[in-house]
């Protein structure tokens, strides 16, 4: 949520005040944006739900939006048309060990927040930014319901969405974010990580 995010930033600011002060070195280059400017630009959504705006939606509501705005590319059931298949199945997740793995939103993506984020930032194609937060929550719910991940009546909002367990959530190495940055420690070589 944006409001809570500001609070978090505020808390960090207080801690930072204890650190040696850094001052800008280049006079009159760049300016301080207003809070409203940042809010208008900041569409980042983290895997833990940071940045999700208030709002809610269900698969039932999402079906209406999906039929009107998404089905033209992704097919009526999200099975793919001009756009890729997004609804995933258990078989997709099982295909990941085969020579022909299928990576779908429902079958592969590790976080439900990414579904929300990408619909919000990029969809509908070439017309992004036109869906309200409630519509984004409901389309997300529709895709997750169609993929067998949530129930049709489940309400997705800024609190419940980050808690949705995606089927392939544990399919990523290294499991901990803090272990990602040091590629040497991970044993990566030749662009390949073990």
């Amino acid at each position, binding site marked *: 949520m944006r409001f809570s995010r500001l609070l978090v*930033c505020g808390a*960090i*600011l207080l*801690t*930072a005040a204890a*650190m040696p002060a*850094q001052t*800008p*070195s*280049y006079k009159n*280059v*760049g*300016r*301080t*944006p207003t809070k409203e*400017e940042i809010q208008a*630009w*900041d*569409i*980042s*959504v*983290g*895997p*833990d739900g*940071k940045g999700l705006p208030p709002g809610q939606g269900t698969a039932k509501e999402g079906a209406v939006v999906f039929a009107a705005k998404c089905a033209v*590319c992704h097919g009526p059931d999200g099975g793919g048309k001009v756009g890729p298949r997004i609804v995933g199945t258990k078989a997709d997740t099982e295909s*990941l*060990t085969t*020579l*022909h*793995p299928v*990576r779908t*939103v429902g079958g*592969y*993506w*590790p976080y439900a*927040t*990414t579904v929300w*984020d*990408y619909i919000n*930032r*990029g*969809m509908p*194609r*070439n017309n*992004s930014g036109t869906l309200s937060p409630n519509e984004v929550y409901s389309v997300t719910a529709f895709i997750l319901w169609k993929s067998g991940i949530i129930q049709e009546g489940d309400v997705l909002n800024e609190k419940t969405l980050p808690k949705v367990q995606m089927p392939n959530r544990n*399919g*990523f*190495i290294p499991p901990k*974010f*803090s272990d*990602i*940055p040091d*590629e040497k420690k991970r044993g*990566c*070589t*030749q*662009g*390949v*990580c073990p």
Partner: protein
Amino acid sequence: MNPKQSDRRRFLKSGAALAGLAVGAATGAGPLAAEPAPERIDDLHLYGERSHFVNSVRTGSINNPERRLEHEPVAFGLRTPLQDSVGMITPASLHYIVSHGFEPPDIDPQEHRLLIHGMVDRPLIFTVDELKRLPSVSRFHFIECHGNSTTAGPGGPERIAPNATVQDTHGFTSCSQWTGVPLSLLLKEAGVQKGATWITAEGADANKHSKSFPLAKAMDDVFVAYGQNGEPIRPEQGFPLRLVVPGWQGINNVKWLRRIDLVDEPYMAMMESSRYPSLKLDGKSRWFEFELGPKSVITYPSGGQRLPVPGFYEITGLAWSGGGAIRRVEVSADGGKTWKDAKLHDPIAKKAHTRFSSPWEWNGEEAVLHSRCTDDQGLVQPTMAEVAKLWKTDVEFFRKTSLVVGDFNAIQPWKINRDGSVQNALF
């Protein structure tokens, strides 16, 4: 076609018409097109065109589904014609393009802004002109798609075909001199707060491409570029601003850069959650592989070319590594049995294409050419068998799978046949 392009085409056609008139007068043929002549003939020379005898072009397509014809094959992007390249710079007009199906946005640089915010003491917003006032760097760097030279995926069949050209096999890498402001300078101005460990960068394209990477890299050698090969970055390459993230997978080099958010974890954007994690045969995906390994390829003689006669040839190609500068390139003309050190051409820059060459006399018999490079970390470009070992599989896997094997840097063999034709001998 935008108005400027159509103007330029008109000028060119008019130029041809004028030339035609002169010829026509001599041969008695009638005048060509009745197009208006340019107001000033010198306008033709204001922005240079290459000779009309030169026709080297990118191949592939943006892959915009709205423009794709019904039976047009799905392409991954547009590839650089490395077979025609000389030196180590890629002309901006031939730089490879991967934009996941989206057209480059048409951005007015006066309107464009870069916002830096999140876990910083002072959020900052910059105009492009303001960024140009700051201390700058100009550096040679390659940018390479992690899917370059992969054996599968949309370009897989062309890449492994015996008649593949080096454009088909390796065309998703290009090298430019990029000019811009170190990201570390901008982040110091903003004052990075304790606890910030990642950045997430965002473009102004239609799907607002977003990519996370560790703060340590951002503070190391990343820069916000506005220049490419001595001119403003081309629209397809991110005009007016792009990130240059040296040596790391191309997807990190966010084009049309408009926002950098300082955060405390990767933000799991669409690309880093879907296509870019490296899925291995155990069904587990290695997410966030960043640094590209050492790679080289012979660009002449290469697939689809033909040696007209036995005799002297200079074998030449490109080598690069995400780990640093190229220290050594070796060339083999007998399928990897014996190797000879190639000459490295200046400039030899870190995380940049390096041109190499090696003299060779072709005796008219079958030959298989290989190149392999070593970077300044001592890492040697692997053979197919060695790549397979890293993937815990066999060589055949790369032929059979439909998985896009990222960061594929195996040695590329070119077979010279007795008739002088050159073919792809990867398998």
